[in-house]
């Protein structure tokens, strides 16, 4: 809806042509050289300042452009930033959406999540821009705003803080560059002065006439060299110090953190094997087992009749509570889940298969 009129308003783009005539009152720049055009982000119809004053001074009124019946308020009229009103509108919408969807990259655990989020936001924005499902999109936007009020506020605060920091950093960088330049200039001046001084001293000494000229020249050369080396190392040091200050920082995705509190280590890995349909006694009386219990040849090797009894009991009661149909269903699901370590990882995580509580 809002798009067609906006195009009408912005279509005459030949500079200095119709731009100089107010589309509402038709007064031209020729008659009124100080004419300023204003737009309202409600419909982006352009009109001159005097028209705005005339029509909207007494409260909200419908847009005077034919075919646009939107109610406009004076307070929202403003000068356009971009020559193209399409761009003006897009920037406004993007700013609004970005104000609500202001989550940050650090909040996401993986690049994929972050990209998905960005795509979602871009979809919403695009819908608003193109006027597709505007109502639903607005609802979504409002719902998100309501749900994430706290987070939005926090992120906005972080962002403004960050902007301030960046500005401060830029200023600091500029200051540093200025100091460096100054230092270099001073250094150069110092060097020149010292050279001149050394020269003068040498000439003085030669004039006084103590010692021969060659030695004096060599000595003073040495002094100059020493001084300049000392200065250079000092300058180098200060430069290194300046370089050590980080100029910018790169922030990325949030590091993977398992927020879940660590569960107590379960040596059984979530598996519990308990007989469900019977109790296992410590001792089962049977004459056939007696000599297996007492024969040293058998017992000394560690053979345990109890294990045999446990097995016999398990096999006797084994099938109870097993429903073949369910089993097959479960199996097919498992087969679809895939092979390799994926299933192992799943099983390792929860031990889902073992806790069926079946007859084992």
């Amino acid at each position, binding site marked *: 809806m809002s798009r067609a009129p906006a195009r009408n308003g912005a279509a005459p783009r030949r500079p200095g042509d119709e731009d100089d005539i107010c589309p509402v009152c038709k007064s031209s720049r020729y008659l009124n050289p100080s004419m300023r055009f204003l737009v309202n982000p409600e419909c982006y119809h352009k009109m001159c300042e005097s028209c705005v004053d005339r029509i909207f001074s007494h409260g909200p009124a419908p847009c005077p452009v034919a075919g646009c019946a939107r109610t406009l308020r004076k307070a929202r009229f403003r000068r356009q930033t971009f020559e193209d009103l399409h761009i003006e509108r897009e920037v406004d919408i993007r700013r609004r959406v970005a104000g609500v969807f202001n989550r940050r990259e650090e909040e996401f655990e993986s690049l994929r999540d972050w990209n998905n989020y960005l795509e979602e936001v871009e979809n919403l924005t695009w819908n608003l821009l193109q006027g597709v499902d505007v109502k639903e999109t607005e609802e979504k936007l409002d719902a998100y705003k309501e749900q994430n009020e706290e987070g939005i506020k926090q992120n906005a605060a972080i962002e403004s803080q960050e902007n301030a920091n960046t500005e401060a950093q830029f200023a600091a960088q500029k200051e540093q560059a200025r100091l460096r330049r100054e230092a270099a200039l001073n250094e150069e001046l110092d060097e020149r002065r010292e050279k001149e001084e050394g020269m003068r001293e040498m000439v003085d000494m030669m004039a006084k006439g103590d010692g021969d000229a060659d030695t004096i020249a060599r000595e003073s050369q040495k002094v100059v060299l020493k001084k300049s080396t000392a200065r250079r190392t000092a300058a180098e040091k200060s430069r290194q110090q300046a370089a050590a200050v980080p100029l910018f920082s790169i922030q990325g995705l949030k590091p993977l953190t398992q927020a879940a509190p660590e569960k107590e280590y379960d*040596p*059984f*890995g979530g598996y519990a094997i308990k007989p469900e349909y019977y109790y296992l006694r410590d001792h089962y009386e049977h004459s056939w087992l007696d000599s297996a219990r007492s024969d040293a*040849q*058998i017992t000394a090797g560690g053979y345990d009749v109890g294990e045999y009894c446990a097995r016999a009991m398990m096999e006797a009661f084994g*099938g109870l509570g097993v429903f073949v149909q369910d089993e097959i269903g479960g199996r097919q699901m498992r087969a679809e889940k895939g*092979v390799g*370590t994926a299933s192992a990882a799943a099983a*390792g995580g929860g031990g889902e298969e*073992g806790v069926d509580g079946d007859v084992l």
Partner: protein
Amino acid sequence: MAISPVVTYDATSNIKVTATKAKSLAVRTNSISNAPNAPPSKPEKGRELAERLNDETKQKYVKDKKLGEGTYAIVYLGHLRADHSSLLAIKKIKVNTEYRDGLSMDAIREVKHLQELSHPNIIALHAVFSSKNQNLNLVLEYLPLGDLEMLIKDSEGIRYGTAEVKAWMGMLGRAVWFCHENFVLHRDIKPNNLLIAADGEVKLADFGLARSFSDPYRPMTYQVITRWYRPPELLFGARFYSGAVDVWSMGTVFAELILRFPFVAGNTDVHQLELICNAIGTPTEENWPGVSKLEGFLKYDKAATIPVRGKDFYLSKFGTAGPVGVDLLMSMLALDPRKRCTARQVLEHKWWSSDPRPTAKEYLPKKGGGAERMGEDLKRRGGEIEDGRGEKVARKLNFDVGKS
């Protein structure tokens, strides 16, 4: 013995298996879920149902490159035909010269027990099929990060502490406990049978020597378990034993994880016993009632008897495990199998809840062994040590022992 495993799933065995275990497996999934679609009694185009099912399974997987080859098996990298991103290891068991008329016992044991056990710390067997020449193919979980032995040996590159040892031992303990709870003896626990999955999970592999718990008076063979990890009762020739043999192996693995070299590494069975006497103590009637009745018991001089080592000995050697950890180690390395703790008691030990907490599996040290290492590990037969040291290890199963 039928050659294709699918054939063995006739109606009766199906019910029995489901009833006893209530655990599912991929192999049976195929046979059961496909059965209603095709009436079992009617052969299609002259082919048997079993063959068709086998072909269906075979069609589901594609072999890629070869990862390793041994005398016993060839290991391939593979993937699902439907999903190229899935990774699998396909272990093709060679037709053995010793077992011309059927399958090698190792393969049968492996299939029989692996398909029953579904646990995150036990290597998963997805399917079994036979290819041409009636070679048996096991479709196994792909575990690309090598094995524990590799980590133990690389003392330069890999550093780990008690928390990591605890994490690994926890995973091993769960695997063994799960086997025993399902009445399966693994009988070849050692660091290079503990493979590491991409997520750091340790998985017990190689069930080539596994068997289910024996009935009373039914003897088992004592020529099992790689020598360094073999408990004294097997060295003494006991034919009636229990899950305690696996617990001993766990204990030696535990010790090896701490020491970073094999704890008792004997060259012969007698040497192995000697080392155990030195390290733990001489078995006598006092500390192990009835031991002298065992067939292979070796008499020791009274003078040369070494008393069972006390806690301070272990503390000096395995101090990093802490006093509680040393307690656990001692109970796992008890000479008398009846005094040794069971796999369940191992997991119930208070060491697991004491500090430090076991490292989460994603933070465990890794050393990309890569696919080749898995190939190496899987192609081996049970009871073998690498590096041509096979001759030091009793390997051949003496089946006559069981029959007598």
